Structures are given as structure tokens and as C-alpha cells.
């Protein structure tokens, strides 16, 4: 039997690279039979800006600014991921307070990422207000980040062996306030969409990914969990302080767009729980590893008053000095909002990475797209795209 893609009455639609539903920049060449998608050939690279090449020219602390711009809807998670990998290479054990702080920012970043993702999915199927409700909460997360590190969007908060600076009581209050008020908004958002018949009919059963396919195609994060893969690096390979918290891994068996939406909504709830626990049990103590590790800039008081403080400071800030890194290779991955975000870092003894490979979840997930969309209709393209949460900067790097 001739396959559908060999028929001559098919027509081609160029979807993107500048299209309202691609949100950023990607291009799909759709082969259509009427409105039904016979084949989809993604064409990416419209935002390829050489992140990995830059990683070979910026030192370990400078590169964090570039990771901000990688998955730009949750920059904090990228910061955490990058320095997680670097610290693995260096063999640094963080202080408990720093671990908790990083957990807090990572989970807040997860909430903001999921808010934008489900919002954009809602936007793609036509629910604009839902998107803006989510965005309003994102603004409040921005406020928290701004109070934490001075930048609302591109944070660059983490440093090798610690964070930029400690959290202030005012910020803690802001986070508490957010924790208290966010559930109500989430309820509102859910009331708008979760049980809306139009939305459910648009997404249920669309773009189904089975468990086997999810593993074989390398899916991770919410996309994999929506397909029944019970894999969450926070549970399976606990990094930072995730061992200390009580939270659930949200899974579904359906593997369709609706399941991915639900998984994300529930993950926001679980993230809230984690942030709450971390905030209430935030350990005292320093946020940076000790001066003997010689990776963090020491306190100003130490720099001015002690000789090893001064030496450490200048050793670190002078060009071509910095800290020493083993001539080794390490892969460190964290559970970013989008999936497994890992960095493969090759150290060569200098203070600049020899190779800084990023394992981007969007890239792997977008490779799923032709498989998911084949046989569905043109309108489902936007729903599937929205549910996969493709971030072009992370996709193309």
C-alpha cells in the first residue's frame, strides 16, 4: 500500500520561522493532506548563536551569564545546572544554606517556567486571558528574584561554590507572600482551563507518546513523566538538598498534551511545597564554601583584614589565575523545568572550560515533534508545540 506521504495531492505549508505559535523561532515544513499533517520536517537553528563556543572562552563564573539566556523562561534553573556541573568537576560540596537557597530558586524558576509553558499552551489554543494570569504571577517571581540578586530576568545568581550573596529577610518575606497568594491564582487558572470542554477536547489524545517511545527517544522531565516514565532527577539522583524534602513526582500514563499540561500544573503545586519546606527550614551558616577551597571571593572584611583573604581575592580576580580545575571531564545534570538539563564540562587546568557541552531538553523534545504530530491536524500543531515547551534559545543554543 502506498504510504500517505507519496500521494501527489499533498501540499506544503511553511510554518515559521516567524509565526505567532512558534513563540520564538523555529520552522516546520508541514506536508498536509487538507488539514491533516502527513509529515513534518523541523528546520531549526534560527537562533543558533554559538553558546558552546562561548563556553570555551568565558571562565566558569562568567559563563553563568550566558546560561541565563539559554532557557530564558527559567534562567535560575540554568544557573543551578551549570554550576552543579562545574562543582561536580571540581568536587565541591556546598554548604547546607547554599543548597537550600539553590533549591528555592530552582523551584521558583520551575514555577515560572511551567506558568509560561501552560500559559503559552492556553494561548495557542486561544485562551489569552489564561496566559496573562500566569504572567502576572511570573512578575511576582521576578520581583523575588530582583530582591534576591538585583536582576529581574537574567539573574546569574549562582557562583562556583556558592551564590552571589545571601538572601535577605525582606526577600524571605516576599517569598512567603508569594507562597500564600499563588495557590489562589493557580486555582483561578485551573478553573479557566482544566475542565473546560473545548480545551480538553483539543488536547486529550493529541500527540500521544508512549512510555517505550519516551525512553527510546530520550524524553525527560514533564514530557517523559506525562508518558509514565517515573523519572525525576530530584528523586532518583538527589542533588543539592532534595533528599530533605517531602514531595511527589507527578506522573501520568496518557502521554498526550492534556497529560503534559496536568503534570506541569501539579508540579507547580509540588514546587510550592518544596519552596515552603526549604524556606521554613533554611539552615543558618555561610552560603559560600570556605576560603580554603579558593573558589569564592571571600568576604570584604576578610579581604581587608587578613592576608590570606587578600591573596585569595586577588588570585581569583586576576586574569589567567582563578581557581584550578582538574584535567578531567564531568557530566552534571539537574531536573530543570523542561527536563534533564545537563552540562558536560571538560576542564584543562585553566580557569576556562575546555568544552562546555549543554544537553538541552528542548532539543531532544523537539526531535519528538514530527513523531507526535503525524496524523493530527494543523490546529494540533500549535497544541503539541505548546505542550512540549520548546524554547528556541535552548533548542539551538
Amino acid at each position, binding site marked *: 500500500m502506498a504510504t500517505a506521504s507519496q500521494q501527489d495531492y499533498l501540499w506544503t505549508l511553511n510554518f515559521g520561522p516567524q509565526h505567532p505559535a512558534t513563540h520564538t523561532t523555529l520552522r516546520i515544513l508541514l506536508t498536509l493532506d487538507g488539514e491533516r499533517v502527513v509529515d513534518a520536517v523541523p528546520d531549526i537553528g534560527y537562533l*543558533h548563536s554559538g553558546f558552546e563556543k562561548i563556553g570555551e572562552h568565558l571562565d566558569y563564573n562568567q559563563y553563568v551569564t550566558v546560561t541565563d539566556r539559554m532557557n530564558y523562561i527559567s534562567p535560575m534553573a540554568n544557573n543551578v545546572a551549570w554550576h552543579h556541573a562545574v562543582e561536580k568537576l571540581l568536587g565541591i560540596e556546598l554548604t547546607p544554606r547554599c543548597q537550600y537557597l539553590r533549591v528555592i530558586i530552582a523551584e521558583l524558576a520551575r514555577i515560572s517556567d511551567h506558568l509560561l509553558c501552560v500559559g503559552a499552551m492556553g494561548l495557542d489554543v486561544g485562551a489569552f486571558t489564561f496566559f496573562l494570569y500566569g504572567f502576572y504571577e511570573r512578575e511576582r517571581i521576578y520581583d523575588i528574584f530582583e530582591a534576591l540578586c538585583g536582576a529581574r530576568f537574567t539573574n546569574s545568581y549562582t557562583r562556583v561554590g556558592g551564590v552571589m550573596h545571601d538572601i535577605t529577610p525582606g526577600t524571605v518575606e516576599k517569598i512567603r507572600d508569594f507562597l500564600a497568594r499563588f495557590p489562589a491564582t493557580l486555582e483561578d487558572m485551573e478553573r479557566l482551563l482544566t475542565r473546560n470542554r473545548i480545551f480538553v477536547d483539543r488536547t486529550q489524545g493529541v500527540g500521544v507518546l508512549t512510555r517505550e517511545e519516551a*525512553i527510546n527517544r530520550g524524553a525527560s522531565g514533564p514530557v517523559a513523566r506525562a508518558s509514565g516514565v517515573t*523519572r525525576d532527577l530530584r528523586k532518583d539522583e538527589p542533588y543539592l538538598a532534595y533528599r530533605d524534602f517531602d514531595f511527589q513526582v507527578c506522573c501520568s500514563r496518557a502521554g498526550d498534551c492534556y497529560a503534559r499540561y496536568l503534570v506541569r500544573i501539579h508540579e507547580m503545586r509540588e514546587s510550592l511545597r518544596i519552596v515552603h519546606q526549604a524556606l521554613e527550614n533554611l539552615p543558618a551558616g555561610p552560603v559560600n564554601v570556605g576560603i580554603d577551597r579558593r573558589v569564592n571571593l571571600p568576604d570584604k572584611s576578610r579581604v581587608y583584614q587578613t592576608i590570606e583573604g587578600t591573596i585569595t581575592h586577588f588570585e581569583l580576580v586576576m586574569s589567567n589565575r582563578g581557581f584550578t580545575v582538574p584535567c578531567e571531564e564531568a557530566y552534571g*545534570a539537574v531536573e530543570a523545568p523542561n527536563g534533564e538539563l545537563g552540562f558536560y564540562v571538560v576542564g584543562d587546568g585553566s580557569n576556562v572550560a*575546555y568544552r562546555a*557541552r549543554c544537553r538541552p531538553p528542548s532539543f531532544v523534545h523537539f*526531535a519528538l515533534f514530527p513523531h507526535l504530530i503525524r496524523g493530527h491536524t494543523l490546529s494540533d500543531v500549535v497544541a503539541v508545540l505548546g505542550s512540549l515547551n520548546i524554547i528556541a534559545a535552548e533548542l539551538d543554543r
Partner: protein
Amino acid sequence: MSELVKNVTAALTARFDGCTVSEFRGEARVRVPRHHLLPVLQFLQQEQGFDLLVDITCVDYLVYRDATDRFGLVYLLCHTESSQRVTIRVTLNEPDLHVPSATPLWEAANWLEREVYDMFGIEFTGHPDLRRILLPPEFAAFPLRKDYPLQGRGERHNFVPLARDAS
């Protein structure tokens, strides 16, 4: 290194000659001769349960200290049941930059290999669709090789400017 990974690496070295195992920060890395690559991956996936291909990447060791080989190809595998990881490494030298493709084993390898091809010019034999993925098809260089400058060779500014009156 956990018990599971120890057993697996032991089985691996026993079955395929020329494999060397090393360890760094508790993670096992196996260096595999190129002709064993596909069998090793197949063995790990189908017999040992390393069913998730996390990543394929490449490192250009052109200016690396004490490096003997030009390219190192890295396969990151994960055992989803127990979350154990294994890294497989293959080294390549110019001019023979061919390795067998892992696409028969993992669909995930498709785009990852295309990216490695795009960035390093390593060719995966048996790959169904080995084209440039991130860079335009006309692009001639392989930008992540160490002999390619960060700012490129002038490709980025080779366009016709549009004046306000011309449009």
C-alpha cells in the same frame, strides 16, 4: 561506582577487548575501540538495561594538554530503573572521521548525531538523514572545532544591507 555499574563494566571488559574503565567522582567511564562501539552500545541497551541515551557529544582535543587523539566522542547512557549512569568514549582521528550511527538503537540519537556532525564534521555511517541541523546548509566550516575562531570567518556579516528607500 555502584555495584551495578561495577558488574556491568566488568562484563563489558570481559566481553569486548580493548575497553578500559576509569572512574571520576563516582561515575564510570568506558573507553571503547571504535569497531566495538555499536556492539557495546547494543550490549548495554539490550542486555544491561541502560535504556536511555542521554546525550551524544564530542570534544576536540586539538590543543588539549597531553592529548593523543583529535576527537573524543562521548555517549552518556542512563539506566532508568536504578538511575545509574555510564559514559562511553570513543576516540577518532583525522582523516577517518566515521563512526557507526546509534540510530538503530535509539531514535534519540538522530538529532544528537546530526548536531555532532554539524559542529564537528564527524560522519555517522548508517544515519538516515545526516544533514546540517543548526547551521545553514551552505555553511562550510565546523564551528566547534578548536581551529575555528570564535568570531567566525566573516560569515555573519555577509548580507546585503537594506536602506530605508530600498524596501
